[in-house]
């Protein structure tokens, strides 16, 4: 579930012409080339990146510099990646990290469990 993005490009900047197509929980997104996955998701209206393994509490990036480990998402099948440290790539399949990683089963699709805002 996407909400109105919390972040958007600053008005004074010319729009980057190069974009990249990727998906988040199966939803297609167009994002500027060169951004971090976390920045790209935030500007696309993704507000909830993961549910914690301890209590399934919703979490999103806090520090954007690799310190807080809140921005963890699954990228191309690899769980728990710090999305603020990874650059977007064409065709990337990103999923929210729903609790602890699962060794035994790879879900075919993840039902997005965004909180309605």
């Amino acid at each position: 579930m996407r909400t109105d993005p919390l972040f958007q490009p600053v008005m004074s900047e010319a729009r980057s012409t190069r974009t990249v197509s990727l998906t988040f929980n199966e939803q297609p997104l167009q994002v500027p080339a060169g951004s971090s996955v976390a920045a790209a998701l935030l500007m696309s209206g993704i507000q909830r990146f993961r549910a914690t393994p301890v209590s399934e509490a919703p979490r999103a990036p806090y520090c954007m510099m690799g310190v807080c480990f809140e921005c963890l998402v699954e990228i191309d099948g690899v769980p728990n990646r710090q999305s603020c440290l990874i650059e977007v790539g064409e065709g990337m399949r990103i999923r929210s990290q729903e609790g602890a990683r699962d060794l035994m089963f790879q879900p075919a699709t993840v039902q997005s469990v965004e909180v309605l805002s």
Partner: protein
Amino acid sequence: MSHSSVDVVVVGAGAAGMSGAVALAELGLHVVLLDEQGSPGGQIYRGITLAPLSRRDMLGPDYAHGNELAQALASSSVRYERGAAVWQVTREHEVSYLREGRLHTLQAKAVLLATGAMERPFPIPGWTLPGVMSAGAAQILLKSSGLAPSEPVVLAGCGPLLYLLGWQYLRAGVPIKALVDTTRPDDYWRARRHLFAALRAWPYLRKGLELMRSLRSARIAHFTGAEQLAVEGDGAARALTFTVAGKAERIATRCVLLHQGVVPNIQFSQSLRARHHWDVDQLCFSPVVDSWGELDVAGVFVAGDGAGIGGAQAAAVQGQLAALGIAVRLEKLSDAQRAFRAEALHARLASNLRIRPFLDALYQPKEANRIPADDVMVCRCEEVTAGELRGFVALGCTGPNQAKSFGRCGMGPCQGRMCGLTVTEVIAKARGVSASEVGYYRIRPPIKPITLGELAGD
């Protein structure tokens, strides 16, 4: 795992790292600079080589200055490895890092740690909700991606970085709904004894005053002396609540940017079991270093904010001083040569640090925002509250390591970065002793996560 030998490994390509690496290379040493980001600049100069001119202009002249360092790096003989996450530094100067899915180890003769600072945690109710970020995070979004809040944003806390961000937003035409300042009138009174030194650092002071004046004339709602900050929301941030002089306030917003200063990132220096001291002015642990930045671990140096908060200009000078210290250790310079070159640097460093005592006193984070009430989450990763932590103290825990083993706080992926200072201070207050006596978490490798397969070497 690949192994090779070099003279010096520099960890971190921020102000201190770039400056130190370039200085070491100029002295004829074989230098490798490792940084986990895709481009140089650390945090203060984040994205400097990729920022379009309009963005550099918006962010201000101090930011643009980082470009000189980046250019010096590019034209030096330093072997700069981007996307390299260092996971271990040993006392024997081995530096192990992960790059493109493979592990490498460098055997150095000296190591320069320049991993800088990180935001001080700001444990208030609701601080873990989506939509709450640090001011530094917002600055990174601005610097690396040209992104800013899409709705009027609330900035809360204190400290130069918060006001700088507000000023940068103003220049970019980003509406600020409110600046909720925890600074009180008596903070100015308390900082007055450093005023003379601050006046001697007039360029810094003037910059700060101009910044504050811009914010004021923009007529942003500015609340001062704010207390009892809390983020309201259910699944995501919805509003910031606080009180001013006992009167309750509530500002509806989906984006709250918190800041109450930065603190040294001590993961590496702690993992080396170097001696640290509790800085009673900056209220954080800093590694104990000599005037060249050397730890009590021979051959390992620290430069920049990682040795104590001083800002980008000071960091660059410290990088050069550390380079001189290393050069003597590696017998590239004599003591006399070093002393000669260092004189001007020491003076410049002193001048850059002159403003600090004033800033540290004026913007000292409030105790209520460092040592929270029982129901506030202290360890975000393992979801441990301040109250649970106090319970462990009542059981007999004397310090953070025992508390960690009793309740898992500090054991999650961030390995204590977001909770370490809070835990130390909560325990210290509960026991009625100093933070210095309580100590800090025992930090262990890997400093950055690596997979079992990568470690196994397949």
